[in-house]
């Protein structure tokens, strides 16, 4: 369906650009516009032999030296405390499995995003354990039992019941104690089996009791409903993307987490790549620095190239390098060399570092073109 006048550009320019041009440009000026577009597009191309990786590294690394080591960042009173700055940048680039402050931004479907039952919704997401519901623990030494004095108000708040609570406790404490509902909707726990040290065991049980998961989404430690522009969103401390996306009132198209590995496991590698880009940009922009998007895209591409997330570390991206000498020059040279010798690796000397070591022209820029003789 491409216009007649644009036929000749089909191979040269991406289709999407052509379609856009066709949609916005009057037919009379189409040819001229296409010509200009082609020229601009080719100009924007990076020339063969440009050291894109190195330029990206320097372009991200240099502003990094200006970054303050200021870890904490509060944007207003109602925001969560999130790691920013250099530590966060290192975290992303190293592709750490456990990040220091996992957080989510949960967008809601209408009408909840207008503030309907916002507190209620938030509490449903939050992971709640027994201690939240208990007003008082009473330890009965004589018959070795603990009585939980429950706060009925709080139980109703999170749409649960004493029964669910009891069930959760029973499940967690199958071996240790028996659960009994007592009058006034309270719970009594009785220790199973009696031995000498039972009082001590009772105390331990009480401590264990406090942290037993009852309801909500595991991993979400805190929730904070915040009004952003015209809608309410929920910011969390702790992250569990998979479970949150399963909730029916959550807008699955916009909800995000800052845990890149979690995005990879729930939404796939392309989403993870985008998450790396977004997160890096967020850090850089928060510091008032300016790095071209394409540098960050290249880093994200490199990290996600193999289908899984690899950090810029000796275990990640660096271990994928083809050249033994290049790997050895980064970190732990002895290990790389001996391992390479064991399998008889060949270094073809087709990258920068190896050629600098050998004092040969590096295959970049003016070192790239060769003369080919006609036979």
């Amino acid at each position, binding site marked *: 369906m491409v216009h007649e006048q644009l036929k000749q550009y089909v191979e040269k320019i991406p289709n999407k650009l052509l379609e856009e041009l066709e949609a916005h440009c009057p037919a009379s000026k189409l040819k001229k516009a296409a010509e200009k577009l082609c020229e601009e597009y080719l100009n924007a191309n990076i020339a063969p032999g440009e050291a894109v990786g*190195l*330029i990206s590294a320097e372009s991200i690394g240099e502003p990094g030296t200006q970054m303050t080591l200021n870890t904490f960042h509060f944007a207003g009173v109602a925001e969560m405390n999130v790691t920013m700055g250099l530590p966060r940048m290192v975290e992303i680039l190293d592709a750490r499995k456990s990040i220091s402050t996992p957080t989510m931004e949960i967008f809601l479907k209408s009408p909840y995003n207008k503030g309907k039952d916002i507190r209620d919704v938030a509490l449903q997401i939050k992971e709640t354990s027994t201690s939240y519901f208990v007003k008082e623990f009473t330890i009965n030494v004589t018959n070795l039992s603990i009585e939980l004095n429950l706060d009925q108000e709080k139980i109703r708040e999170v749409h649960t019941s004493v029964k669910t609570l009891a069930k959760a406790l029973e499940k967690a404490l199958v071996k240790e104690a028996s659960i009994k509902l007592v009058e006034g909707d309270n719970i009594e726990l009785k220790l199973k089996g009696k031995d000498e040290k039972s009082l001590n065991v009772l105390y331990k049980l009480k401590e264990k009791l406090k942290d037993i998961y009852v309801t909500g989404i595991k991993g979400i430690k805190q929730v904070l409903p915040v009004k952003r522009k015209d809608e309410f969103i929920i910011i969390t401390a702790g992250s569990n993307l998979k479970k949150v996306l399963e909730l029916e009132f959550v807008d699955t198209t916009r909800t995000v987490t800052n845990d890149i590995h979690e995005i990879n496991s729930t939404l796939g590698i392309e989403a993870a790549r985008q998450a790396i880009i977004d997160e890096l940009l967020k850090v850089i922009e928060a510091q008032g620095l300016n790095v071209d998007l394409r540098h960050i895209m290249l880093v994200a591409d490199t990290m996600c190239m193999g289908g899984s997330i690899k950090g810029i570390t000796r275990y990640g991206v660096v271990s994928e390098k083809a050249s033994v000498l290049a790997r050895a020059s980064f970190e732990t040279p*002895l290990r790389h*060399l001996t391992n390479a010798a064991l399998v008889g690796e060949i270094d073809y000397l087709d990258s920068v570092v190896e050629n600098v*070591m*050998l004092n040969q*022209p*590096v295959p*970049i820029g003016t070192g790239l073109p060769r003369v080919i003789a006609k036979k």
Partner: protein
Amino acid sequence: MATTEVYLNGKYTGDIENKEEFIAAIKSERFKEPFAGRLNIYYNEELNRVFVESSRGRATRPLIVVKNGIPLLTERHIKQLHKNELSWTDLVQQGIIEYLDTAEEETALVAFTEREITPDHTHLEISPLAMLGLISALVPYGNFTQSSRLSIGAKNQKQSIGLYTTNYHVRMDMDVNSLHTPQKPIVKTVMHDLADYDKHPAGQNIVVAVMNYKGYNMEDAIILNKGSIERGFGRSTYFRPAIAEELRYSGGLMDQICIPDKDIKGYKSEKDYKLLEGDGIVYPEAQVSEDNVVIGKTSPPRFLSSLDEYSLASNIRRESSMALKHGEQGVVDFVVITENEEGNKLVQVRIRDQRIPEVGDKFTSRHSQKGVIGFIFPESDLPFTSRGIVPDLIFSPHSVPSRMTISHLLELIGAKTGSLAGRHVNGTTFDSEPEEKLRKELLELGFRDDGTEIMYNGLTGERFHARIFVGNMYYLKLKHMVANKIHSRARGPIQLLTRQPTEGRAKEGGLRLGEMEKDTFVAHGASLLLKERFDSDKTAIPVCESCGLTAIQDALKDKRFCPVCGDSVEISDIEVSYAFKLILDEFKSLGIYPKLQLENKY
């Protein structure tokens, strides 16, 4: 009643019931023996703990004790002090003066001056100046400048060249400088008197104009008057000794200080020994320059058991003379021949070198306004005032606003007044002559009270539109001089192991093109330029084409062969860095077989 824990020198020692009583008891007893004022006590309310400190190495400072709003130090004490009937130690032992450490200071309320004492105050400053250290107190008008600048100003003063000792001519100090005509500052502080600064001054009073001139004082640079330099401003002498010792070795062998024989190992050249007298030591007042030997010395061979050393019939001693290093020069100032503790003959030769200010030498005022000379103008080309005063130094006004060194500007006014009135000006921090007074005096002396004057361009004679801030200042020459630092190299010595250029000025080394500098070449795609930059250790090595190991070239027999495959194989030369040849050898030592596969480049 709740008890309070007591910690002595950080260790828990016990509980007390009444902390107020306990603290009061310690405070009333601590100036007596055996504590003698070395005890400090501090109560931490948050922790409900009392910390008692008696350990050494804490920073403490003395303060006058105040009781019920009355300082314990009275006029009577001061009179007694003047008459030498009372000493400082007496005051401390009587509990009139207390030394507080940083922790106890937190619980004390210290009055700045006697006037502001209230019944709540516990201590009184002896003098506000006592808050500063010795060197910081040498900065005049310190209370008009940021404290961080004050610290930097103090640090600068420590690097200044002055009269570091009066017996320098009989001393053998390493790497010292001495200023030729040091002066005491016109703007003084009390500390200058207390520290006998006029006995070892470290700077000179000069006329400073605050202006820009021809752009040679951008970015903290300063312009100097050539006439002032010729009159002796900033002239100093640099002393450096050469030391040689006749060491004794096992087997009765020893070093020998003498003119080395021509046939010893490592003999330099006859020219280098020409300044030595018969005893192998240079004569005083000899002009010496680089590579000249000042103390001739030979040492016995290093490895006695080495067979080939025995087989040589000739002299096998080696050369170990002390010679001037690359770029050094001077005059032999002083020669000492003596014996050291071990009874070895010790020869020390002190070399003196006059240092006249040159472009790149560093100067500073006392307010952390340091700068290097950007240009030295002839006196005739410098601006002059309507009275014909030509500044010795031109200081850039851009150095002031961001650093907020108001004291620098005040000193300028103060010293101008002082020099015109022929007196010293008191610039003691917190206790200086007020600006208004100085201004009034300046006005009475026939100058504008803001210190500005009409000036004329020295090159064209035109009057400047703006009035220029001119005055006197105390300037210090810092020990960082270009003569000690200037360095360049086109070719020169290389390291034995890597065949790369040596590093450092002393070894006439090259300037390293490092990892990050390499990146700039790569980023520009300047591949061949990069190769050329790293060419310093390039070599051609013969490689056996069949096994890929480095082959051997026997230049004597003009033969090449492979140590593995023999001499019937194809051997080709490849051009690589020597460092790469080295790493191939290291691979082999690791048990790794680095096989080179050769290919035709074209």
